[in-house]
């Protein structure tokens, strides 16, 4: 492939809405808005990461004990799956910049598939927890009676954090499906592909949350 001019100016386009003067202004507003939204997401997950830190410091031994029930293999595979999905998302944005509809749809579908693989593996993990009675609530049972109560709190955090993350994945999958429909209806051009870029940002954010969740929940204390 020859040189690609990525500094393409975003020309005035029919998609410039009434209250913006230029397409640049509109695009910059969307980008800033998306980053501010991601900031709120950081604070949202931050509340759970904060609680995690508190309990990890309170009950390090119980924590080491519960980490043995985390399936590192499946978690590791899922980490790889998500990193790949971030790559395909970037390639989708790149294809959108080039105005290549075929590649855009291809990479969006790949991203969507990888997202679904992640959720499927997550389902298998949750099912293991269900079989082992590690779902917090009336049916909770923990073999090591020293940590019976504390383990339940830690599993509660595990499910809250990974559950919220999975919820964000499901929303992301819905958004990507919308993008695929829009792309197939020729809504995007090389001058206007803002939704692809914005949902791309969202997808990367959700991936990064997992990059923090995986070591914190699965790896730390696992070898003790």
């Amino acid at each position, binding site marked *: 492939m020859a040189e690609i001019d990525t500094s393409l100016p975003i020309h005035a386009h029919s998609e410039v809405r009434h*209250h913006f003067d230029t397409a640049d202004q509109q695009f910059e*507003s969307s980008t*800033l808005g998306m980053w*501010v939204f991601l*900031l709120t997401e950081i604070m949202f997950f931050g*509340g759970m990461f904060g609680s995690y830190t508190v309990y990890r410091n*309170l*009950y390090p031994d119980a924590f080491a004990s519960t980490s043995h029930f985390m399936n590192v293999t499946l978690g590791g595979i899922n980490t790889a799956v998500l990193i790949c999905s971030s790559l395909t998302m970037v390639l989708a944005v790149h294809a959108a910049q080039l105005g290549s509809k075929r590649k855009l749809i291809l990479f969006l579908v790949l991203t969507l598939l990888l997202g679904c693989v992640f959720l499927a593996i997550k389902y298998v993990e949750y099912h293991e927890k269900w079989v082992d009675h590690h779902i917090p*609530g009336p049916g909770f049972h923990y073999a090591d009676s020293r940590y019976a109560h504390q383990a339940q*709190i830690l599993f509660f955090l595990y499910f809250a954090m990974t559950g919220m993350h999975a919820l964000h994945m499901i929303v992301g999958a819905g958004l990507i499906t919308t993008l695929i429909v829009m792309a197939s209806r020729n809504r995007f051009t090389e001058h206007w592909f803002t939704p692809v870029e914005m949902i791309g940002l969202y997808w990367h954010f959700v991936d990064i949350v997992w990059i923090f969740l995986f070591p914190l929940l699965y790896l730390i204390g696992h070898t003790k």
Partner: protein
Amino acid sequence: MSTTFEPPRVEERPNYLNVDYGWKSWLFTTDHKRIALLYLFSITAFFVIGGSFAVGMRLNLLRPEGLFEADTYNKLFTMHGIIMVFFFLVPSIPAVLGNFLIPIMIGARDLAFPRINLLSWYIYVVGGIFAVLAAFEGGVDTGWTFYAPFSTTYSNTHVILTAMGVFVAGFSSILTGLNFIVTIHKMRAPGMTWGRLPLFVWSHYATAIIQVLGTPVIAITLVLLALERLLHAGIFDPNVGGDPILFQHLFWFYSHPAVYIMILPGMGVISELIPCFSRKVIFGYNFIAFSSVAIAVIGFLVWGHHLFVAGQSMYASTVFSLLSFLVAVPSAIKVFNWTATMYRGSISYETPMLYAFGFIGLFTIGGLTGLVLATMALDVHLTDTYFVIAHFHYVMVGGMVMAYLGGIHFWFPKISGRMYPEGWAKFAALVVFVGFNLTFFPQFLLGYLGMPRRYHAYAPEFQILNVMSSAGASILGVGYLLPMIYLAWAWRKGPKAPQNPWGAKGLEWEQSPTPPPTYNFETPPVVTEPAYNYAEEAHVG
């Protein structure tokens, strides 16, 4: 042949109100001005609902033994707090006046995301329906603070439904803040530099920062609360190793900054009113602008002063106490600069200015008693007494509601295109001021004497002060009903407003027609002078 003379038809200039009258043109509008009005009517409804719970409370407290059952009283104060905080105070000035004015003040045709703006209103309404539904189903009795483990384990009222209402409404607040930040960054007209922004816009920018950074934390806190209530895993339950103080930390991490969501926009309104009715340039523009941002930043570091007696580490308390003193400095800077603006100004006493006077006096009392509560030793005595109630009502009601009413009167001609009756309005402002002080000043005394908050009954020696407070509340109620009546009347029958009835500065008065057309300006606005440039006129006149 009879000749009948019809009065000549005067075509009204098209504006955002007369452009369309159908219900769809309101419920599907993306015009920030119409959305502001949707918010105006809905928050007024919630104000009435929240106020009616307060009526029940003040009735109950007329007698030392109470009037209602203890459980009923618990529900009354809880729902009063929840409705007033989350469904009135937080959206009040930002979602109504901010929504209406920010685009016009900076010379934009709309907010950056008009559809998200409409979405935020729908989200707010859905959240409100949850909360009201919970009230109809029998209410909730945890206090507006939802403290665990009472809320997670012991309360048998509608905690989850109410929490869901607050959770949902939070997203409306986030979206409003997000819209403001992007709009103020990206949509300013040529010449509208950061240093020329009206201080109203600066204070909303600071508010938006808090909305965006704080609200998600209360959202996740409420999610954890609801999950814990369903599963009883023990995350906030000390019996099984959970930490109830963690809940308080998470809750106040949002809810203390939320206090600044509820006061900063009011400060913005006052910063507009004072220079206009003093005919003077604002004193210390930069200090007022940056003190808003300072309040937003420092405000995130003071939440621990709610936990002095909760079991928080003494050293943490010391730091939180000092930081709480620090956050008073930017507020004091504002009060100083407003009074300095008035110094040697040609002050006139129109209704908005009366509210501004009320704000400065009452907010100062509220702020200074906040310092009393931030002092650890004093707080041990005053925690959970009526002193706290009086303190934050001086800030929230004496401050924010005064500023809200002042702003509503000031911009009423802009919004409706009509003038309100000045005599009635001045009278109502006076009634509000008297009623407010009679309601809440006795509560400082009650708290200092040791009357605890959140009890349906009290010791007989507190009765006189409580009766005074209830009497004041009924006067205050009249003071709030009056504007609702005469403003509703003026909306239809008031005399047409001139373009700029106050001779005020600012794009909304000088370059945007009254009332504004849908896209706010007939010619693209250009800004060539600093904000509050009242000095020129003073020299001429």
